[in-house]
């Protein structure tokens, strides 16, 4: 059974290879092939899952060693897989949601002439993501980590003819690379500290080294997580990444890839447990991003960017939970899974709306769509209820646990974190209600698109609605299935040690508070967007709104410091290279040239002139000989 693990990755990888190298011949069947291979990977995942459930809790991890990858001296990196409960959760999420989104894309990308390539990239992504979560060492994880980065780059920039898409893709890759520095330094630190970077040995012996070193490793891992999971300060790429096709946003930039940072932190739990300082930084990053994303999400009029802000915020929740230690790991992952369902559903819904609205993304130009797109409306609505934490739906279970765990952190920190998470819940309710109202309720504010076509909203084809429905099921029930009776926690416990947190106030009170803030958020949004007509042109807004529309000026800061500064730096270096480094050499050459120009005058071409120098030379030789004899 262990040997099936490689097949999990092999299936989509094969799909990617065939689809990308196959050429135009496969245009007709490419999308079916890609979907089939993704689905087969899901089936293999299910088989392995069934096998895993059949074993005792401590014996569930499976290993497969393929071959030695980089054996150099003490540096031994292997292509080897480890499938434990944590990885299994991810495998099912990735392949399951991945397959649904494949199916969805068949309809969504129907009119795109490069659909085959799109499916190739999607398969590549699934393979890389599986590699990431199945790796049994950090270097192989890094392989998958960069692999998903590449797939993300390719898919964000899928519509390359749009300069904005190409720029967004590049930006995503570059910002991720900054995070990757963290991961590679972390691996190097592990190698110098432990002599290896395989999960097992490193995590087992994590306690044996100094806390300072572990803090350093932890912070570097956090940097990596920030890059991949769009956490402050490396969050700027996620909003732009919405330039990619909507299924991509759903799969990569909502459900799976962006949660890789959470996986990394939870996977490295033993390191973080032994480094409280690093943990504190993790929670702070999570808390800041949580609010940051939520605020940005409130101000965006672009439906996908609003959802992107929401994603950032929700991942902030997960990172925060992961930073809480054993009381939070399981909930981080649980929220990750439920978020995977409802956020993917929301994105697919958004895609369905755009599909019907001539690819319009500005919510101010929607309105009243619920009659025209009933299925989309219902599924989107269920996702909406899930994300704001409506009692009984999946988001409620997972988010509530995180808020509880935040309070349970204890001390002043616990109160602050708890307050932040509650505030975040309120803002979540606010901006999601805003999205809901602006899109499906109110008056029609439809505008003809740039080419003058009037929108004719219609329900999307079956291939798109079925995945949405399935995801909506997940959004509704997943939380209950996982949360009731701590099933999910028990499942994950062998991997991520679990402790029950003890919040200073009762769990019931926290739950009530959660529901209360949610209602407040919804209420304010209703007052602003439900009761009053929504202007088609965005009002100027307050200072905060304007800043939030610009991603809280973070991009402007990046632009001013890194882009402008970097441009000046490179320009001056090019100048230095040309004038100074090369100038010294060319100056020497010019000097020699000048000197030889003078000397050349001696070479006048007259034989007699040369004869004089020969004769003079002979005289000098004789003089020298005589002198030597004299001495």
């Amino acid at each position, binding site marked *: 059974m262990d040997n099936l693990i490689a097949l999990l990755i092999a299936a989509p990888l094969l799909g990617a290879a065939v689809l990308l190298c196959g050429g135009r011949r496969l245009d007709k069947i490419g999308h079916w092939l890609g979907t089939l291979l993704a689905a087969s990977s899901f089936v293999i995942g299910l088989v392995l899952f069934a096998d895993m459930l059949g074993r005792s809790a401590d014996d569930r991890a499976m290993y497969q060693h393929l071959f030695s990858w980089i054996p150099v001296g003490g540096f031994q990196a292997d292509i080897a897989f480890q499938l434990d409960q944590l990885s299994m959760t991810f495998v099912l999420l990735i392949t399951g949601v991945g397959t649904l989104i494949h199916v969805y894309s068949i309809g969504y990308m129907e009119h795109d002439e490069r659909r085959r390539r799109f499916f190739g990239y999607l398969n590549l992504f699934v393979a890389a993501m599986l590699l990431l979560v199945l790796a049994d060492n950090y270097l192989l994880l890094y392989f998958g980590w960069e692999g998903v980065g590449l797939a993300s780059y390719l898919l964000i920039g899928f519509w390359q003819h749009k300069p904005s898409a190409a720029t967004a893709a590049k930006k995503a890759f570059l910002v991720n690379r900054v995070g990757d520095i963290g991961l590679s330094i972390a691996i190097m630190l592990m190698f110098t500290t432990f002599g290896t970077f395989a999960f097992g040995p490193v995590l087992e012996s994590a306690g044996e080294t100094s806390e300072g070193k572990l803090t350093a490793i932890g912070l570097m891992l956090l940097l990596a997580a920030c890059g991949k999971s769009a956490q402050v300060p490396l969050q700027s790429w996620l909003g732009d990444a919405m330039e990619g096709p909507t299924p991509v946003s759903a799969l990569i930039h909502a459900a799976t890839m962006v949660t890789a940072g959470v996986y990394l932190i939870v996977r490295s739990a033993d390191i973080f447990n032994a480094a409280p300082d690093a943990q504190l930084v993790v929670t702070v990053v999570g808390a800041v991003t949580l609010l940051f994303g939520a605020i940005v999400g409130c101000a965006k009029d672009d439906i996908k960017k609003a959802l992107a802000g929401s994603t950032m915020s929700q991942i902030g929740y997960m990172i925060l939970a992961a930073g809480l230690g054993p009381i939070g790991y399981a909930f981080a992952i649980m929220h990750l899974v439920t978020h995977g369902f409802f956020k993917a559903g929301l994105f697919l819904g958004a895609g369905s709306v755009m599909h019907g609205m001539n690819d319009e993304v500005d919510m101010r130009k929607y309105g009243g769509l619920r009659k025209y797109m009933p299925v989309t409306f219902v599924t989107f609505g269920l996702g909406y209820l899930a994300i704001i934490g409506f009692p009984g739906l999946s988001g409620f279970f997972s988010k509530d646990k995180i808020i509880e765990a935040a309070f349970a952190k204890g001390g002043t920190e616990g109160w602050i974190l708890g307050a932040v998470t509650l505030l975040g819940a309120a803002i979540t309710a606010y901006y999601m209600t805003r999205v809901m109202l602006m899109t499906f309720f109110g008056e029609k504010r439809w505008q003809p698109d740039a080419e003058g076509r009037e929108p004719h909203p219609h329900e999307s084809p079956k291939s798109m609605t079925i995945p949405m429905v399935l995801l909506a099921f997940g959004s509704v029930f997943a939380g209950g299935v996982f949360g009731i009776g701590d099933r999910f926690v028990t499942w994950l416990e062998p991997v991520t040690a679990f402790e029950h947190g003890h919040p200073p106030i009762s769990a019931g009170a926290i739950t009530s508070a959660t529901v209360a803030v949610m209602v407040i958020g919804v209420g304010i949004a209703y007052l602003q967007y439900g009761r009053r007509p929504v202007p088609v042109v965005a009002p100027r807004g307050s200072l905060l709104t304007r800043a939030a529309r610009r991603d809280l000026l973070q991009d402007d800061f990046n632009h001013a410091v890194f882009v402008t500064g970097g441009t000046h730096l490179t320009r001056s270096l090019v100048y230095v290279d040309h004038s100074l480094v090369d100038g010294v050499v060319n100056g020497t050459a010019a000097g020699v040239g000048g000197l030889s120009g003078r000397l050349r005058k001696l070479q006048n071409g*007259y034989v007699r*002139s040369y004869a004089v120098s020969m004769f003079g030379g002979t005289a000098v030789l004789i*003089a020298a000989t005589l002198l030597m004899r004299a001495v």
Partner: protein
Amino acid sequence: MSALAAYTTSTGEAFQFWVLGTVAVIGALCTILMKKAVHSALCLAGTMIVLAVFYLANGAYFLGIVQIVVYTGAIMMLFLFVVMLVGVTAADSLKETIKGQRWWAAACGLGFGVLLFAGIGNAALTEFAGLGAANAAHGGNVEGLAALIFTKYVFAFEITGALLITASVGAMLLTHRERTERARTQRELAEQRVREGKHLPPLPAPGVYARHNAVDVPGLLPDGTPSELTVISTLRQRGQVRDVSGEALADLKALEQRSSERLGRDRDEARDGEEASR
């Protein structure tokens, strides 16, 4: 013979050295200072003959004779022959064209000479073994040389033979121009002239006057300037065309002068001139 072995020479030899040595130096100086190559060659020949005498005085009888026969006789004649070929009357301008050449040459020459003299003076050259014994060993100078040439230096001698052959072949190769195409016949030349359309008739003859009995005097055009065409190209290239136009014009003028004096026209002319100036 025995005198050759002495530290000092006989008075006769000393006298001969000082007189002929002076002649040799003068000859050498004239060689490098004479404007015309033919004069240089003659001066050099003089120096060489003096040197031949010195060889004889030094006991090198064979070389003395060879010097006269081969050098003065053959090589210098070769020189003269080439001088003739190039133009015997052509005189070099002794004006220096390369800046500083003469000064450098003088300085180097002076320095070199002083150094050589110093070197010879410095060397302990008081022992003169003389050639009496060496010459007598094989019964004479020529025999002695022959014995050396055909034993010790036989290889060098043979190689010298090869060198001479090579030199003569080389000289032939250098001066001989291979005719790459058939010589054109008179008819062809005539046709070419017609085709090119210039100088259909024969070239004009040089202007031969009674006092210039030579082909190097160009014929004069009606305006008194010399015509290049009338002189053969070789002389033209050598720059040996004697330009007599000035002379001829002056003669003409003098003739007119004389005839006008005789006819008493000069007074009228003077008057005309005064009027013109007024």
